[in-house]
């Protein structure tokens, strides 16, 4: 593993068994079906894709909020093994080691309503990770909570209030403060701004970027809003039916997509400009059922460039340009439309 890599995921799979009739063995839903992902320290990498593509399951499996079915998750840990950095496989850690590791890996949720316990006040919510980990005394905890609240742009005087007294944007700030309480190095941000109004969304995106610069955070940013993704991320991975179909620097992926699905996704985004004249690539049909993915390239039934090869052979993720990989048989032949910087 390269020295600048913080987290390396190899062959991650999560299959959910489906329940069917008494005498049938149900086929599994392959929510995540072989994801490889390398995350460098200090970067923001985004996972994009439509609902059911497995992006959220990937993020939660990395944190072991969902137990992965298969795969290796290497993380450069400081909490485990004293002060020096130790390479650990998150997927096989014992529960006591996992508890230690949670100081370094945290999560920010999409829904600012269900993510805060309605019966707890803000100080208890933000201080909860500290209490669970037992790292500070009660008084120290109180000071730390106030410091955290100020860091996310809320006043220390908010500490004794309850979640229902806050707006959506403020609640999301409370959730961010909680994620930061243990000074983690790696944060999975699961659609952190999707539920917010545009003007509030911009505030929270800025806050996330400021905190990253101050605290040297690494983000795995899960989102479906491509404009926000373009703005916030260094690299982007596009997921379809549990697999990464394209990954690369966000500039490359957005301007020169190498996978037809990425092209379709980009062209589907409505641009806030009435004069933008874009040829829209219409994708036909819907995403196939993840318990019975089509043979060959999982995208071929909706792809307008599909050939006989695509119907039979599963394409592997391969180099498609400097710092860009895609899983498509026809990378060399196709020139796909990206979003041009006029």
């Amino acid at each position: 593993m390269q020295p600048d890599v913080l987290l390396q995921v190899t062959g991650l799979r999560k299959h959910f068994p489906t329940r069917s009739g008494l005498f049938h063995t149900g086929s599994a839903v392959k929510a995540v079906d072989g994801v490889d992902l390398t995350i460098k320290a200090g970067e923001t990498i985004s996972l994009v894709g439509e609902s059911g593509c497995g992006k959220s399951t990937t993020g939660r499996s990395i944190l072991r909020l969902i137990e992965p079915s298969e795969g290796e998750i290497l993380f450069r840990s400081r909490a485990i093994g004293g002060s020096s950095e130790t390479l650990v496989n998150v997927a096989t850690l014992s529960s006591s080691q996992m508890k230690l590791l949670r100081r370094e890996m945290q999560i920010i949720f999409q829904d600012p309503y269900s993510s805060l316990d309605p019966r707890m006040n803000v100080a208890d919510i933000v201080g909860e990770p500290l209490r669970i980990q037992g790292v500070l005394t009660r008084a120290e905890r109180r000071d730390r909570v106030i410091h955290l609240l100020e860091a996310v742009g809320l006043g220390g005087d908010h500490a004794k209030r309850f979640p229902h007294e806050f707006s959506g944007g403020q609640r999301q700030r409370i959730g961010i403060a909680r994620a930061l309480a243990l000074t983690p190095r790696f944060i999975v941000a699961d659609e952190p701004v999707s539920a917010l109004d545009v003007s509030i969304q911009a505030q929270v995106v800025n806050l996330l970027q400021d905190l990253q610069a101050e605290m040297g955070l690494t983000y795995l940013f899960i989102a479906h809003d491509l404009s926000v993704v373009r703005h916030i991320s260094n690299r982007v991975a596009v997921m379809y039916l549990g697999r990464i179909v394209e990954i690369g620097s966000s500039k490359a992926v957005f301007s020169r997509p190498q996978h037809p699905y990425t092209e379709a996704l980009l062209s589907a985004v409505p641009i806030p400009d009435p004069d933008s004249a874009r040829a829209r690539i219409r994708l036909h049909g819907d995403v196939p059922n993840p318990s019975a993915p089509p043979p060959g390239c999982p995208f071929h039934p909706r792809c307008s460039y599909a050939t006989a090869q695509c119907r039979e052979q599963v394409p592997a993720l391969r180099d498609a340009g400097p710092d860009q990989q895609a899983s498509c048989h026809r990378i060399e032949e196709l020139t796909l439309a990206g979003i041009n910087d006029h």
Partner: protein
Amino acid sequence: MEILRRYACDRVGLFFGIILLGFYAVAITAQWITPVDPFETNLSEGLQPPSAAHWFGTDQFGRDTFSRVILATQVTAKITTVSLLFSLLIGVPIGMMVGYLGGIADAVVMRLTDMLLIFPTIMIAIIIVVVVGPSQNGVIIALGLSQLPNFIRIARSAALSVRRELYVEAAVAAGASWPDILLRHILHNISGPIIVKSTLALPGFVIGASSLSYLGLGVQPPTPEWGQMLHEAKDFLTNAPYLIVGPAIALSLFVLAANMAGDSLNESLDPKLKGRRIKRIVPRLTGRIATS
């Protein structure tokens, strides 16, 4: 507190809530407020109709029915409270645990409760009393056990709905163990519904206790209990019908009060019902303003 405030807005609910509390006040102070010793027999004054001295009359042994109804309130309150606590303290932790953890334990416990629920409450109670023997403790165990499946189910379904909340996941992400999550998040968030369901279950306990005593399987004479008093009164139905009035009124009023208070507590707890009362008032108000 919010719930109590909303509850206090409901006049009907508040009225019956006060009656319910009144029953418990009587139960606690029963020893001191009975006008006559409820055990004192006076055969020469047997089967007397209601009078200034004996408001509900006297029974065949000349005991004051009014005093006995008061003491019976204490007996009933004790039986129901203890058996309710019994089901709560055993059922809620089990239900919460299997609801949160799921898996095989959940499947086993749920099938067991299903099996218990097949039989009518009173039948289970009778079986248990037959085993333990007819006594006050027998009734308590019988009622507690027969209501146990209901409380396991209530706690389980409440825990199931809280389990999926993101704040529980956030606690897991911070390294919390499952007992910690049960105590900190789940118990906290399900206590409201549990209290309401307990109130709503109260009438069932009272009727159960009285039925068992009526059948002679519960509280034994001379200790008075509403059901047991009704049992004794039924033999004198033709020449002293007034004997059933006291225990019957007490029993019905208690059941009614617990039902009504529980219902309105339930309403004030459920956020979906929020503003329902306001809903009824506002259009009328604005209509009046518009016409004036």
